């Protein structure tokens, strides 16, 4: 006998369940998010879609295994106890950006998921499985963490910076961050953070900074300025300080400008120091100018004095000589002695006139030194030779010159210099020996230059020699003869005031040169003159 039990209902029901399960399975498998189904308290992975298998990184072998076995790295993390708990409570659990450490490609890595655990109940109401959906948000989380890290770093940098930095946010320029330096600079405490700047620092209003900040915010062009002044309260008192500052626009990802970073360096000390230096310099310059004026006035007074000396002193001297002679002629015949006395008076007075004239000439030497022009020394000697024609003829003298240079010098002084030397050479002659005077020149070599310490290093010099065959002098007097009014001979032997060579020396010095003499008594003298030749 065959017994047939009508199992249609059961089969249909089972088929329905199978269908339902099938539908469910394909739902899961086709879900765009990682989805899986843990069945039983052991959390056996019955279903897991491709997305989830990828998340776990273990391949499809995980299917059918309990979770703890498929992902052993979960040990120690909170998922297993959590899921077990959900089994008990039947509650669902949602997490955003939750961390899970998974071994993927053989390496334990950190991941972040937005995940959802949903317990599934059977018909009896008991939990038989938990469905998980998870979205991998690792990238976003890491990016956000990186951003937060950057912001933290920036904040720290700002706060720790040794110069004043602050960040203004928004069109009200709310003080978002301000480091200690900036707070000190403002003369305010931390209470200003979070306030719009012009509310926190009302003293800064109306100094032009509203316009500058708005300009940067709108145009996106940075602004910087040096040594601008700003008035701020310091210890309750308004002070003007000087700052170098820069405003940099802060851009968002979309390019809009959300704020301004301001850096400020207080340069008040520098500016004040510099102003002080400028003051001191101005004062010194004034002092110098005053000293110059004083010197110029002195010079003018000296010139006047020299002129007066020339005129007013010579006048009475002339009277003495003139009236002495008139007296003599008035007296008619006088005895020899009286005649001598008259002559002595006249001679002395004439000598005094010469001295006064020479002193005047000597003192005026520094005044006329400014005008320098090219001087042909050879031509000058020829000129002087014709001036001295009479004396030359009288003494049968011969003056010759060769290789004489042309260089920049003061014409009058050169004339005086060489005139004096020639005049001396024509005067201090040996009895019966016609004077022979030769003048020549050479370029001063570097070795020779070194011997003369006072010469200027960067200038070319030439050395001119004036040689005569006159009476000469003993070398021990070689320096003395250049002293003013120093004479080696009495006035009865040779006329002269003793100023000629002193004049020559001063002239040489005026031209940054030198003069000295070498001689042997009875065999002539050579004068050596070093002058710049340019």
């Amino acid at each position, binding site marked *: 006998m065959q017994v047939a039990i009508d199992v249609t209902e059961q089969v249909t029901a089972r088929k329905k369940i199978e269908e339902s399960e099938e539908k469910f399975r394909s739902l899961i498998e086709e879900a765009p998010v990682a989805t899986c189904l843990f069945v039983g308290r052991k959390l056996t992975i019955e279903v897991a879609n491709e997305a989830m298998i990828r998340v776990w990184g273990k391949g499809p072998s995980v299917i059918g295994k309990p979770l703890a076995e498929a992902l052993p790295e979960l040990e120690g993390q909170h998922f297993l106890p959590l899921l077990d708990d959900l089994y008990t409570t039947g509650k669902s659990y949602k997490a955003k950006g939750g961390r899970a450490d998974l071994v993927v490609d053989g390496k334990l890595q950190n991941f972040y998921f937005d995940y959802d655990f949903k317990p599934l109940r059977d018909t009896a109401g008991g939990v038989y499985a938990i469905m998980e959906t998870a979205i991998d948000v690792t990238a976003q989380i890491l990016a956000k963490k990186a951003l937060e890290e950057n912001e933290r770093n920036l904040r720290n940098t700002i706060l720790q910076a040794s110069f004043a930095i602050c960040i203004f946010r928004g069109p009200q320029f709310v003080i978002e961050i301000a480091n200690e330096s900036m707070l000190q600079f403002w003369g305010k405490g931390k209470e200003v953070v979070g306030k719009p700047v012009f509310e926190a620092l009302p003293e800064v209003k109306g100094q032009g900074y509203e316009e500058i900040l708005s300009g940067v915010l709108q145009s996106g062009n940075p602004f910087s300025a040096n040594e601008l002044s700003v008035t701020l309260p310091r210890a309750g008192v308004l002070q003007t300080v000087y700052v170098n500052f820069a405003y940099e626009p802060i851009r968002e990802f979309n390019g809009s400008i959300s704020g301004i970073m301001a850096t400020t360096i207080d340069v008040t000390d520098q500016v004040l120091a510099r102003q002080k230096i400028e003051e001191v310099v101005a004062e010194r310059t004034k002092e110098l100018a005053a000293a110059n004026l004083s010197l110029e006035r002195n010079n003018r007074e000296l010139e006047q004095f020299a002129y007066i000396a020339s005129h007013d002193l010579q006048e009475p*001297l*002339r009277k003495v*000589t003139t009236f002495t002679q008139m007296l003599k002629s008035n007296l008619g015949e006088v005895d020899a002695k009286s005649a001598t006395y008259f002559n002595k008076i006249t001679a002395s007075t004439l000598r005094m006139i010469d001295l006064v004239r020479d002193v005047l000439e000597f003192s005026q030497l520094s005044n006329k030194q400014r005008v320098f022009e090219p001087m042909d020394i050879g031509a000058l000697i020829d000129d002087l030779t014709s001036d001295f024609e009479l004396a030359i003829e009288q003494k049968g003298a011969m003056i010759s010159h060769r290789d004489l240079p042309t260089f920049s010098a003061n014409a009058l002084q050169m004339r005086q210099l060489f005139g004096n030397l020639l005049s001396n050479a024509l005067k201090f002659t040996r009895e019966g020996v016609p004077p022979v005077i030769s003048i020549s020149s050479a370029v001063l070599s570097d070795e020779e230059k070194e011997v003369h310490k006072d010469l200027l290093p960067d200038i070319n010099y030439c050395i001119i020699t004036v040689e005569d065959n006159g009476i000469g002098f003993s070398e021990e007097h070689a320096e003395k003869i250049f002293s003013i009014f120093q004479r080696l001979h009495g006035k009865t032997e040779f006329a002269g005031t003793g100023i000629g060579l002193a004049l020559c020396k001063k002239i040489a010095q005026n031209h940054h040169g030198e003069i000295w003499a070498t001689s042997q008594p009875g065999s002539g003298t050579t004068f050596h003159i070093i002058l710049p030749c340019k």
Partner: protein
Amino acid sequence: MLKNGPIILIDDDADEVEILRDALQKLGIQNELIWFSDGLSAFSYLKTTEAKPLLIFSDINMPGVSGIELRRRITEDEEAKRKSVPFVFLTTASGTLAIKEAYAMCVQGFFQKPPLFDDYMKLVKQIYDYWQVCRHPND
């Protein structure tokens, strides 16, 4: 005639007129010597006189109107200028500047007073002889 015209001396120093007078006497020069101690009175004389002076000796450094200033006024005044009286400076000072200034005023000579009286007389004679010979519009 001009050759016998007066010789004018303009100098603030009374000694100078005595020296010149003595020199003229010793030289045998008989022209009248007229002395002005300041430039202004000399100038008014030159403007108004009917006489035809031979020569003017003038000092430079005088209080009030200086010799240079006097010469300038003469050259700028029609009447005085027309008389063309030879004008020489006879002075102690002889700086280059003074000489330049003087010749800018068209003087007929610039001489430094020699200290020795003999030289002074020689100089006066030289100048006098020169103007005795020199032709002149007022002849």
